[in-house]
């Protein structure tokens, strides 16, 4: 059997096992909580435990599948290729492309600085570069597919479209503000041609290996966050009374959106860890716009990223960056609360 055929066979077996596991977890969680542990249905503890026992395997299973698929998609994109696409694009078209590429290009906030310099060097406009840097963390593929799995395609699509819109418009606005003088001057001094080192060529098996590598690396790193998030979610699910949050996180409380953004910006959590909290908050009557604004400010803007960007951007530009993005998130929150 050829290597490709063997990989395809293993892939099919893995997928079958995944589907079987996914089908069995809900009955299993109910049986464990209400029969094996003998907790009462409808009790605070019983509902919390059932939520935790069902959501943990569900979220982890979804995570493994998503990270695997994204790992394969990302094997087609590199920072170098994205830069080549963006070089020489005009501002408006560039902002749109940059935001879209931000979703699929492999990105880690520790690479934000070399990436920023790499883009600016080949003449990618500042606003376009910022569109990329906003979209890369904010439109998170893990968050996207978890939202799809837990709330359906409408919420996932809203998140995708509004996240991209914020990245495109914020980058465009920041570009118009002509803030180039607030980029550390040495960034422009180091302009030169890019390094040419050969990129490896990947076949089918190579790309599947990339996917598995992503699963090992990302799921291996985020699972404690997911457990912590689900534990918080389970607590809210079981103990917070129905409708309590509606009074101060509901649609009628206009101030809840700015409050959610203010609390969310300095916080940093992994996208996979924040989703179970989002799920529980929504279940208790919090408005979708408020919750989305909270989630976007937690994963899209974070203190560690700002500290890293400070190496290349001077404080006025950092302030404009955070201010414009936070305003975008705020508007999205209000918009959702108004139209839904």
């Amino acid at each position, binding site marked *: 059997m050829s290597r490709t055929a063997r990989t395809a066979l293993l892939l099919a077996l893995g997928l079958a096992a995944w589907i079987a596991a996914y089908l069995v977890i809900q009955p299993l969680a109910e049986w464990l909580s209400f029969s094996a542990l003998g907790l009462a249905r409808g009790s605070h503890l019983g509902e919390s435990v059932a939520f935790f026992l069902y959501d943990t395997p569900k979220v982890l299973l979804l995570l493994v599948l998503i990270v695997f698929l994204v790992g394969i998609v990302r094997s087609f994109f*590199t*920072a*170098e290729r994205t*830069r080549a696409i963006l070089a020489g694009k005009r501002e408006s078209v560039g902002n749109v492309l940059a935001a879209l590429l931000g979703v699929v290009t*492999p990105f*880690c906030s*520790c*690479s934000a*600085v*070399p*990436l920023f*310099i*790499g883009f600016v060097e080949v003449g990618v406009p500042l606003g376009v570069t910022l569109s990329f840097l906003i979209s890369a963390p904010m439109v998170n593929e893990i968050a996207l597919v978890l939202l799809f799995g837990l709330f359906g395609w409408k919420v996932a699509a809203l998140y995708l479209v509004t996240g991209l819109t914020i990245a495109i418009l914020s980058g465009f606005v920041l570009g118009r503000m002509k803030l180039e003088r607030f980029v550390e001057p*040495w960034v422009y001094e*180091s302009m*030169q*041609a*890019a*390094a040419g*080192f050969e990129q490896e060529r990947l076949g089918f098996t190579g790309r599947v290996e990339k996917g598995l590598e992503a699963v090992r*690396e990302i799921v291996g790193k985020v699972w404690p966050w997911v457990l912590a998030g689900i534990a918080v979610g389970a607590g809210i699910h079981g103990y917070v009374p129905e409708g309590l949050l509606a009074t101060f996180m509901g649609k009628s409380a206009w101030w809840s959106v700015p409050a959610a953004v203010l609390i969310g910006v300095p916080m940093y959590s992994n996208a996979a860890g924040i989703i179970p909290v989002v799920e529980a908050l929504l279940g208790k009557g919090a408005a979708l716009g408020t919750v989305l604004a909270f989630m976007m400010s937690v994963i899209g803007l974070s203190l560690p990223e700002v500290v*890293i960007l400070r*190496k*290349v951007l001077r404080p006025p530009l950092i302030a404009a960056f955070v201010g414009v993005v936070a305003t975008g998130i705020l508007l999205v929150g209000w918009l959702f609360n108004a139209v839904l």
Partner: protein
Amino acid sequence: MKIQVLGTGCAKCKQLTASAEKAVAELGLGVPVEKVEDIREIMKFKVMSTPALVVDGQVRSAGKVLSPEDVKAYLRW
């Protein structure tokens, strides 16, 4: 032979440094693995993603945590 790891001190950079040190020890090369953490020094190598492995001034890999075996493959030739 000169081996350098480029990275601003994030977790992945430390993993790559550890892999490189293990590879050097297993091949018995007896050279130090130099860590380049200053961003301006890193940019002189023109990489866009970190961590990166540099052998004799040539960037061999960027944006990936290599295993000791992967590093050995780059060190042999």
